[in-house]
């Protein structure tokens, strides 16, 4: 139900009319501020399995409320963030994570930005080297004041 979701709704209203704009507003009472912060970080990093692009923190559906309760219970039982994440992935698959894992089959996704940037910089430097050699002989010098 983000901006984009609404845009979809605008464009394909019939498909999505059943969806609701209500938000889960779920006050929690974790015993310490540290646990509260970890709890919030965790439920924002998991997605709701039923909704489109909503985090567990925001999803109003019952399943999300159950999952939030599971996470709170695990936190209170003293599990680490990593243990909780592993448990959620083993139960629901990678789909649950908003942060895609870095594994063999998803490496391309994480490496694309750096690779494109690297290639781009190499190409740019090559072009600049070539053009710098031409700069001495290039006659254009008029009207080079600012646009």
């Amino acid at each position, binding site marked *: *139900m*983000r*901006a*984009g*979701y*609404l*845009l*979809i*709704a*605008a*464009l*394909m*209203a*019939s*498909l*999505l009319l059943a*969806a*609701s*704009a*209500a*938000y889960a*507003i*779920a*006050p929690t009472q974790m015993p310490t501020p540290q646990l509260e912060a970890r709890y919030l970080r965790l439920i924002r*990093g998991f*997605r709701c399995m039923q909704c*489109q*692009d909503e985090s567990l923190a*925001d999803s109003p559906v019952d399943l999300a409320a159950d999952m939030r309760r599971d996470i709170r219970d695990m936190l209170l039982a003293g599990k680490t963030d990593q243990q909780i994440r592993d448990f959620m992935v083993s139960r629901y*698959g*990678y*789909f649950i*994570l*908003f942060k*895609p894992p870095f594994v063999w*089959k*998803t490496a*391309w*996704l*994480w490496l*694309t*930005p*750096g690779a*494109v*940037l690297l290639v*781009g*910089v190499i*190409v*740019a430097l090559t*072009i*600049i080297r070539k*053009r*710098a050699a031409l*700069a001495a*002989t*290039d006659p*254009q010098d008029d009207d*080079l004041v*600012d*646009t």
Partner: protein
Amino acid sequence: MIPELGEFALILAMLLAALQAFFGIMGPALRRDRWMAAVTPAVSGQFVMVATSMGCLITSFINNDFSVKYVAENSNSSLPLFYRVAALWGAHSGSLILWIFLLALWSIAAAIGTSRLPKPFASRVIGVLGVISFGFLLYTLATSNPFLRLDPPWPDGESLNPVLQDPGLAAHPPVLYTGYVGLAVAFAFAGAAMLEGRLDREWARWTRPWTTAAWAFLSCGIALGSWWAYYTLGWGGFWFWDPVENASFMPWLMATALIHSLAVTEKRGLFKSWTLLLAVLAFSLSLVGTFLVRSGVLVSVHSFAASPGRGTFILAFLIVMIGSALALYAWRAPLLKSEAGFELTARESFLLFNNILLVTACATVFAGTIAPLIAGPLGIGKLSVGPPYFNPTFLLSILPLLALLSVGIHAGWKRGNLGRRARILLLAFIAAAVIGCGVVFGFFTGGRVLSPVGVALGVWIILSSLIDPIDRLRRHISIPRAVLGMTLAHIGLGIFVISITSVEAFTAERDVALSAGGIAQLGAYQFQFQGVKPIEGADYSGVAGTVILKHNGALVDVMHPQKREYWVQHTVTTHSAIYMYRVSNVLVALGQDLGDGRWSLRLQVRPLVTFIWLAAFIMAAGGMLAISDRRYRLEREPAAALTPAALAAVPAVTRSEAG
């Protein structure tokens, strides 16, 4: 009768678009003056027919004609008149009509704008636009006709999705579409140049205002969508890297790159083939974006298969349009040579890196957007890609871009001597760094590692942008509007960077459960809940809460967050109450009734969040200011030898310019 008239007008528009495309492209190719002369009547006729068709559809909405399937599915007799009109673009078929109408509008504008340009070039531009119009009209008539009738008619319509019943909705899609479709004009200019095999600095000067105009509309459209989502929903965020948001953001990134590349092409006659490629890619992304959203592939891959007719047509159309443009590009690009040179520290280098970084950013967004779609075939299973992927990878290319900007705008063309600017630029940098660290560590407490960097970069961009205009003012040199527009857009970007940093670092939020009289504290703010009262609107009922907002004990505002249930669809929506206090946005959303008079509430304080959208509008205003520069209006008289007839007589390729 009216719907049939609309359908008939749409068919005529398609035939006229075909004529427009044929005469526009074949006329110059076969050097038939009379064919070229037919282009203007064809495009005018097409516009009249499309406008008639859209008028017919609006009339059906206003008259509550529920014998028309599209009207019955998207409107309702209880809907206020304003939303009955806005419901036109509430779903698939009507959005296409809006798209086609805006394309016809841009085509007319292009026909007027190119009337003083060489005739063969002008008709090629309009011809390429005709090809696009024809494709969209054929698609609409063949698979998504909004004028289909119901037999028997429905007694009343299903109404518009309640979350869309908002003034923001009325504005967001048309403005965004105006931007999307505007990139078609830049594409048409590139297409005409490739068909002609001629691309010079003049061409870049003709193309720039159109590209900037489309970019400005795109900026406003994206900002409106983000703003609308922020204030209509209880969620309080402004960007989630949702696939559909990304679909509008990718063309924007490409258009931004194109604007800067065109600047080099106009000034130095460099980067010609790159500019062409960017124009093709920007429009391709806006086509892919429209169609990905349209076909529902982004929501679910299954919806693509649900209407195979539409899906197949979309794929074929994309392949024909993008494929032929790229083929044309591969054929013509090698002809576009340039002998101009520049040094490493020249403006050209900075703009080259600007392009590399913007394209990298676009590729990053593209990879993250398609990853969930291709995860299945790749054997990964279902995959989610959200902010934890996009935020760091996007910053990888955007942070260097922001850092280079402040220096780049002062670098000279060809030879990059900063000269006397170097010292003042360094001073500006030190001032920005001090302000950045001061704001983050002094005024506020906390913040993240990147927060001082973000604020410092934003301040540096603003200070650095102001150096040149202030210098010109002091020396009593006039400032061309193009320079002023660029300055304004860059200042807008600086404000944008500062606001996003502030929102990311200093947002405070809390979900609380309160009974009447209960008080919650968030930072320096106190929220006193006074219970809820029932409310009733035209097509909904619900409850409104009362929350007294105080800042350090002083009364600020009485806020009324609402929860509405719309009768027709039984949909519940949250309407958060937002109050602007100083530069912070205080948001209260009503959650659930927890029993015993207790309600859950979401409280948020977001410093500077309004400035994010304001900044986007400032950037757009800068673009519009630049377009109004007189140099885009004064057409130099073509040299005597280059009259249209003479141009047409010379074989196209030999005219390919060297410089």
